């Protein structure tokens, strides 16, 4: 059996971090956490997670900032934005900055873990194709 997936939880609310960490561990993942964007970038470089569950509204450096910084190189885990920002502009911005999925709070834990596993199983080509498709769909919706 392969090593468990390592998941980094990033949220400025310590309760959200604890909640996700505990549940991820119960599901058999290896979970770590960070309370702001800068901490997230440090954990990504040092602990090299496979997937990041990334909040958007955070002090110091927000989720978009983390995505933008990740584009500059270094370790590149898959990223699921987990945020209360539900507008299609926010979603489009997230996809354009390179997220691999977008989950709006409040979310269902089982649904979130299902998405997490699906994304971890995809190839780079598949995630890129999904991203292109989502951006096109959101842009089409914005024009309509």
């Amino acid at each position, binding site marked *: 059996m392969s090593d468990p997936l390592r998941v980094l939880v990033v949220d*400025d*609310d*310590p*309760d*959200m971090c*604890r*909640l*996700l960490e*505990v*549940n991820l561990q*119960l599901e058999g993942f290896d979970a770590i956490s960070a309370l702001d964007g800068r901490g997230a970038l440090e954990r990504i470089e040092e602990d090299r997670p496979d997937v990041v569950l990334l909040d958007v*509204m*955070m*002090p*110091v450096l*927000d989720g978009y900032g983390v995505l933008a910084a990740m584009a500059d190189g270094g370790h590149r885990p898959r990223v699921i934005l987990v945020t*209360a*920002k*539900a*507008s299609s502009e926010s979603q489009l911005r997230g996809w354009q900055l390179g997220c691999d999925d977008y989950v709006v*709070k*409040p*979310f269902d*834990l089982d649904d979130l873990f299902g998405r997490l596993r699906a994304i971890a199983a995809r190839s780079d080509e598949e995630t890129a194709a999904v991203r292109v498709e989502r951006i096109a769909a959101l842009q089409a919706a914005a024009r309509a």
Partner: protein
Amino acid sequence: MAAVTLILVLLWLAGDLLPEPLNLGELPRSSVVVLIAGLGCAFILYVVEKESSLRRLTNALIEERVHSDALTARLAETASIAEVAKALNDTLETKDVFGMILSSVLELSGGREASIMLVDEDRTTLEVVSYQGPREADVLRRKVAMGEGVAGRVAQERRPMLLQADDPLVQRASSAPAGVIRSSMCVPLTRRGEVIGVLSVNETGDERTFTEHDLSILEVFAEHAAIAIGNASQFEQEREHVQRLEELDRLKSDFIATVSHELKTPLTAIIGAAKTVTRSGEMDPDQRAMFLEMIQRQGTGLLRLVEDILTTARIESGARGRREPVDLRDVAELVLADMRHTRHGRDRTITFETLPERPEAWGDLTAIQQILSNLLENACKYSPPDTPVSLRIIESSAGTTIEVADRGRGIAAEEVDSIFDRFRQVDSSATRNVGGFGLGLYIVKSLVEQHQGTIEVESEAGRGSLFRVRLPARAGDADDRLSAPVSVEEGTGA
């Protein structure tokens, strides 16, 4: 006509004198002389008559010509007034309307400078809102009281005035750098029976002086001008109204977006924690306790958000609190205990001192509790978790002072004025993300003002902030309700 009759009479007379058959050769000499003399007289009379009627005709023609010149001039005036009136009706920008009125007035009257003054809302003063002429800068915004000076009198007495250089009113106004006013006209601008302002024209050159005729033209013109100004200002009001509504709509949308975000986050934690506890049968007791505390903490946070919204709604509906002695030590201890359960307040050192031991305030218990709670929560939210926050309460004969200090990021000088605005958070990307509705300080300020108190903030960016609330001591009157915050001070200022 008279000449012809005379000739016929003469011929008849001559005919009577002549024997039949007519024979000139046989006529007596005297008769011929009479006949010739008669014919001569008739001719002279005819010429005289003709000449006088010619003169009458010439006079009539000259008169006609003068009349027609005046008519042409009138027509030209009417046409230009009509033209301007049409152009004015097509213009809705107040500034354009003013400009068009003034340049038309100067063209019509041949004056050197012209101005529009409008009556202010409480109808006590007139203010120059537009001016064309050689002294732009010092005329605009100049004010005059109703009833004073030429403009003030025209507006109050609702009658036009035509003044020449020797009038004392004109001499007083002539100190202006534009030169000595030689002639001046001022007419009221009337809309729906009410004077909205005055229109003035001055002639400063030597070329001419204004006449009653010029004044009557200006009056006609002023009627059109007043309508145009009225339409434009009505349009402007409508536009401002629409802008206010749009701003409100935007605030409302922002508010709904913020509310849904702020409510969703704790709800996500509550639902997730409850679900985790429910389905994990084998969870260890410590972890279970941790999740139950999480539910309590997030639920309390939610409640505070809802309370903020309700308090704001109450403040805005004008509801007033009770007035009673409030034990500040009791209130503060209650608030401090609650702070331990909040996200930013737990694990935080909050120092607390009072002078005397149990200071009192005069006011509404719930309101004072909320003032303390919001100030402390704010201090914790905007300062690093490892820095202390302090609360000091001092009661003196003048009243009670509450000070909340933190060692956080502070507030930049240019932001200090706006932090008490509704829905406002210090608007940098770093703090826009701390969460909350931006209602906390707005609520504090409103509640403090309901107590006739004051709030001030001392802050330096990067060094922390100190919020100081002063609540006045119990007032002498027997009224047991708090009065409205604004009216008292405004009333004494007048």
